[in-house]
């Protein structure tokens, strides 16, 4: 029997998701043995037309990492959708938009002005900005268009499964690959990680008081976090209650709170809103003034509650631009 065909592809990504694949170390050989990799631009020479020539649905599964931010990425994502039975959004950027998705607080014009005009070291008296087409005496130079909005993969094509994390941990990657190859497929839309919130497996959970109340919000650099105690109970923002478990409590192990790279828990669409309601329920404030004081101490809710998920939140992007 022919081996199942698998494709790896990346869109607007930092390269960390590929490092995570290399971090499979010896296990990568097992993957290579079990499947026939038809597309892996890092390792194999292939052309669009090779993929275009393949019959529809002839690839069993395509793993795609990175967000979508230009026309080329959109095009290949659509092509892979057509040729694949299954699409896996790999990593926080494909899943939720990721940290680069925070760019949706601004638009293309503002980003260009900042990068090419306003930054301290930039010297640009003639106000030159990158152009889609530049005429030089010898001919034309072209650049791809930079979209106004960063999108997650499922805002561009239909996605079957998600491998969360920035980057996904190698053990989950192996689990995902094995699950999909086993033929015993989970329901469509499954996020290959825990069904529960991070708090449920967090070793610090047991230190939470029965009735958790906090009077003030502390910033991570202003306190020495007790390595045993729940961050949130100590008044330090930790997005654990609104985040899907399965990462192995990686940041918590380094004595730092969670920022939510695994995305929202099951059936929750908006991770930030979910966290906010969890937070509201534990804040101990009696007067309006107290409420206001504590709200004001959360200086950057977008950066803290939506660090990895702005494009897929109900906020989506800065409006009116």
């Amino acid at each position: 029997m022919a081996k199942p065909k698998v494709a790896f592809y990346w869109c607007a990504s930092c390269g960390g998701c590929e490092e995570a694949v290399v971090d499979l170390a010896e296990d990568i050989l097992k993957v290579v043995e079990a499947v026939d990799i038809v597309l892996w631009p890092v390792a194999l020479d292939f052309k669009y037309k090779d993929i275009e020539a393949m019959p529809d649905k002839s690839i069993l599964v395509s793993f795609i990492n990175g967000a979508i931010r230009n026309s080329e990425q959109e095009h290949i994502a659509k092509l892979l959708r057509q040729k694949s039975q299954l699409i896996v959004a790999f990593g926080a950027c494909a899943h939720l938009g990721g940290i680069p998705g925070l760019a949706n607080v601004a638009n293309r014009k503002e980003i260009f002005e900042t990068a090419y005009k306003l930054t301290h070291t930039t010297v640009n008296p003639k106000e030159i900005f990158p152009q889609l087409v530049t005429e030089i005496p010898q001919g034309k130079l072209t650049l791809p268009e930079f979209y106004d909005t960063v999108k997650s993969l499922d805002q561009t094509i239909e996605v079957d499964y998600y491998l969360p994390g920035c980057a996904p941990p190698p053990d989950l990657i192996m689990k995902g690959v094995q699950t999909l190859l086993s033929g015993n497929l989970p329901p469509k839309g499954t996020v290959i990680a825990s069904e529960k919130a991070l708090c449920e497996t967090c070793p610090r959970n047991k230190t939470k008081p029965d009735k958790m109340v906090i009077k003030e919000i502390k910033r991570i650099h202003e306190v020495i976090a007790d390595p045993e105690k729940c961050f949130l109970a100590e008044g330090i923002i930790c997005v654990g209650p609104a985040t899907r478990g399965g990462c192995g409590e990686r940041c918590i192990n380094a004595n730092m709170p969670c920022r939510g790279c695994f995305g929202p828990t099951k059936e929750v669409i908006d991770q930030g809103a979910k966290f906010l309601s969890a937070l509201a329920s534990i804040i101990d404030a009696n007067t309006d003034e107290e409420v206001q004081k504590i709200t004001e101490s959360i200086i950057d809710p977008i950066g803290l509650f939506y660090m990895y998920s702005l494009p897929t939140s109900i906020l989506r992007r800065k409006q009116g631009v």
Partner: protein
Amino acid sequence: MYKEITIDPITRLEGHGKIDIFLDEAGNVAHACLQVPELRGYERFAVGRLAEEMPRITETICGVCPTAHHMCSTKALDDLYGVEPPPAARKIREFQYNTFMFEDHNLHFYFLGGPDFIVGPDAPAAERNVLGVIAKVGLEIGKKVIDIRKRTRNIIQTLGGRVVHPVNGLPGGVSRGITKEQQEEWKKIAEDAVEFAKFTLKAFDDIVLKNKAYVDLILGDVYKHKTYYMGLVDDNNKVNFYDGWIRVVDPEGKEFAKFKARDYLNHIAEGVESWTYIKFPYLKNVGWKGFVDGKDSGVYRVAPLGRLNASDGMATPLAQEYYEKFYQTLGGKPVHHTLATHWARVIEAMQAAEKMVELINDPEILDPRIRNMDFKTPKVGIGVIEAPRGTLFHHYETDEKGRLTKANLIVATVNNSAAINMSIEKAARMLIKNGVVNDGLLNMIEMAFRAYDPCFACATHNLPGQVPIEINIHNAQGEIIRTIKN
């Protein structure tokens, strides 16, 4: 009419780096350039974020060197809040950082740039990758490469929480300390790292330096540019990856400038071109004269060759021995041969490994005092570090609550962007004559490109190994009349 040749290194499917070569009517190179078609806008969306979150946010600029961004950002926070980390915290950071430098330099040598040498520049493209390296050096050694990568990356994971995108940096310290058991375990890994670095240097010696053809290639004119060089040095002008003075030497090797991160704006400026999204830094006090070499041109180079040239030596004894041999073999300082970067890189891997040993054996590294929280009111914070691919700057400005109002980032590879363009143009000019496109062109350009280990190539994911390159030769009507690919 001009002919256009396009080299699309990541084939067309990627769009992160494309080389265009234009020929004049006689068939000689009229123009060549590298376009970087990617921009992500971190300097804009940093505005409004909390300073203490910046080490987590900025590291997603690059998943291959996230530790460099994380650490540089953390150092910018030290400066922002006016705090020095306590000795143990500083040592933990330096240990983590040197571990990362070691691991990343190995990745480059065995997976990315090294295959050109180890397997050979004329070997079939399909073999010029890590598998070809393993075939050449043997499976045992291949396993050793995977093993040392795994163990060193585990150190980063333990300290940083995540290995891709660590989280442990805080202004004035780190979020967790080192236990006695970890120290014992890591001493062993550090010693093995030194042994591994010796092994790599010996392999370089046997495979490259004992082969006259390779040495001639390194010394050849195609890969030579007389530029300024920049790198971090300690008080004795020895190479330092984590901190120190930013030193610049001129094309003759004479000190041109030496300054602290805080003064960088007096020394570096960046120009903009309409045909690429990348900017072109240059030395402000020399000025931008275009994509040219020499003392009157503000173009400078960073990364391993830049660091060795900008220093007076290595900070550790074994690395120093190799440093001396490097300059003896290549005809004295500074070395202008781009391909020598590969050798410089493995010498640096040795220093990183020796530093790991030194730091992890320091009893003070176990001291539980790992935070200095004597914060001043934040305003401006500037951090500098030597990323594997060159000097990296993070500059933040904030309101009094520590929320960003402005950011400026000069990412390691960007420092080299003008030089990379020059290297490509030079290789093209030397290898295309009277319309005859030498088949070696593809590989030669690829090698010039790889020696810099450009970070947009990281960002464009040429992991692990082969960059697919395609040269399309167009006639005046834009039809492809010939295609060369690897």
